[in-house]
């Protein structure tokens, strides 16, 4: 069975989707700084900090924004271990691999050690790699904190409040729901196939099996969409989507929004090269 690696890894991926969703929904319900804010403030505020991290050209400023992101995570009860495993290590590995060759390939002045040895690393390459990793780490931390502290439905409502077309909000909501249904169906199909498999499937057989599973899943998806359409019609849906928006901004929300935007603008301004 060791040869059938694609199957278990697909199952693990599907299971991870459920685990992630459950953990995020759980965390989003806990009391905390970001959880107490209006979702629109969270969305606009965190986005402005991400934008500031992109606009800043100084490593120190980006590092400052990273500290802000970590502080937001701590005050919102997001565990640093979660961030370390889900964001920092992954980004360091992925962006590190991408950024490493820049040390040698970026044209510029070569670094010289105190003993006079010329290293094959350029100053420009080093700065570029550090800047890239710092920026990606900061942006990914901010985004993850937003994702972990905001229930999906609240995020959708804030989209509606921000004038995203109702059809798009509706499709986002439906897709989110069906992702889990289809992931569960796919997981069950793979699991049942794995339980009936004796010996090792060759790669071609595994590929055919994955294609057939995807085909059956597609048929089920289309069937599901027809059922949903009929259900929508039976409830009087005529193409006009309505989303309830009950948000009410409090003084604390306004203050927080001003604080977010001020920090973002200040970081972008100070971080100019």
């Amino acid at each position, binding site marked *: 069975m060791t040869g059938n690696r694609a199957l278990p890894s697909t199952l693990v991926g599907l299971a991870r989707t459920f685990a992630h969703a459950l953990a995020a929904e759980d965390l989003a319900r806990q009391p905390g700084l970001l959880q107490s804010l209006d979702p629109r403030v969270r969305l606009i505020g965190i986005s402005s900090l991400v934008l500031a991290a992109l606009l800043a050209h100084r490593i120190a400023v980006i590092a400052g924004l990273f500290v802000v992101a970590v502080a937001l995570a701590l005050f919102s009860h997001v565990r640093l271990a979660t961030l370390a495993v889900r964001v920092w290590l992954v980004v360091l590995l992925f962006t590190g691999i991408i950024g490493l060759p820049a040390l040698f390939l970026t044209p510029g002045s070569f670094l010289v050690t105190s003993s006079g040895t010329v290293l094959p690393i350029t100053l420009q390459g080093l700065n570029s790699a550090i800047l890239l990793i710092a920026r990606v780490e900061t942006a990914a931390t901010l985004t993850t904190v937003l994702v972990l502290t905001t229930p999906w439905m609240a995020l959708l409502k804030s989209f509606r409040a921000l004038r995203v077309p109702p059809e798009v909000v*509706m499709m986002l909501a439906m897709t989110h729901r069906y992702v889990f249904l289809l992931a569960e169906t796919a997981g069950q199909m793979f699991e049942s196939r794995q339980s009936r498999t004796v010996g090792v499937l060759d790669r071609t057989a595994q590929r055919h099996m994955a294609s057939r599973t995807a085909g059956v899943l597609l048929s089920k998806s289309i069937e599901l969409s027809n059922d949903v359409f009929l259900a929508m019609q039976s409830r009087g849906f005529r193409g006009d989507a309505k989303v309830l928006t009950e948000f009410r901004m409090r003084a604390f929300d306004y203050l927080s929004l001003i604080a977010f935007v001020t920090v973002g603008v200040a970081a972008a301004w100070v971080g100019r090269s």
Partner: protein
Amino acid sequence: MHIPDGYLSPSTCAVLYVGAGVGWYGALRRVKSAFTTRLIPLISVFAAFSFVLMMFNLPLPGGTTGHAVGVTIASIVLGPAGSILAISIALAIQALFFGDGGITTLGANCFNMAIVSSLVAYAAYRIIAGGAALVSRRRVVAAAIAGYLAVNAAALCAAVEFGIQPMLFHTAQGVPLYAPYPLHIAIPAMMIGHLAVAGVAEAAITAGLVAYLQSADSALLQRTSGGPASSPTSEPGSPHRSLRRLWLTVALLLLLTPLGILVAGTAWGEWKASEFSSSQGRDRIAAASQQQPPPDEAPQGLQRLSTIWTAPLPAYAPQFVKSRSVGYLLSAMFGTGLLLTFSWIVQSCLRRVATDHSG
């Protein structure tokens, strides 16, 4: 291929958001004007299907594994407008709910993977499949090639977006501020993996899905088959209307061709061997190469190969035309006419082959 936050400059992100916005607006308008109520759940479920499909690890020849995007099957079943929306929604959920792909780069990711891929997949599938029967093997081959091209087109777009960063955004000391590699590194680095793995994965899964649908539910392939029966559920707008728009666009582009004369200097690398020996030509080459002096004489390969073929209309300027603008326009009309004739001949041949097969 999901570009995270931090790799692209804010201005690149803004431009790609605008590009993606145009695609979203067009797709949404088409969907809304056509058959909103049925398509909304269909697109949503397809977005969910694409999301789940991205988790399928597919064993590929050579010992590696890859995953498909699902954009090609979405283009084949839903048409390009539906596919653009479905894949964009899947990407938005990945970015906003799972933190996979950035918020600022969501426009870029949707532009590459939803819009460019959908259009390339649809065009390639329609051209290659031609008028073949729904259960024809040619449709399976067309789907595989369309999937391969679509994923690689998206990867090429991402590579170009990465590659232009160090050229456009760097400090006075030459430190690249975003993705650090220029085009000549970014393009091969990005394309090797996609040409060898991701494109093959998309091709394999799309071919498998089309083959499955041919045996299980071939009606789903009807919408983009180009056959007469597809009209009630096909993309809105009659074919004649779409064709008229296409012709108007082509005519407008033809009229705009003399704009090329306004560009100062010569395009980098498009030099004749003789330009290396004349002082004016050398000045032009230096101006196009950031004042780097050209070699003393033309490279040997250029000298050897430049005599093999002499173009009938050199420099887009037919000898019998005095005005450069008219020459440009005539060259554009001639080139477009050649392409249309070639396309018509290929289409006729493919249609004949398809008729022979189905008959």
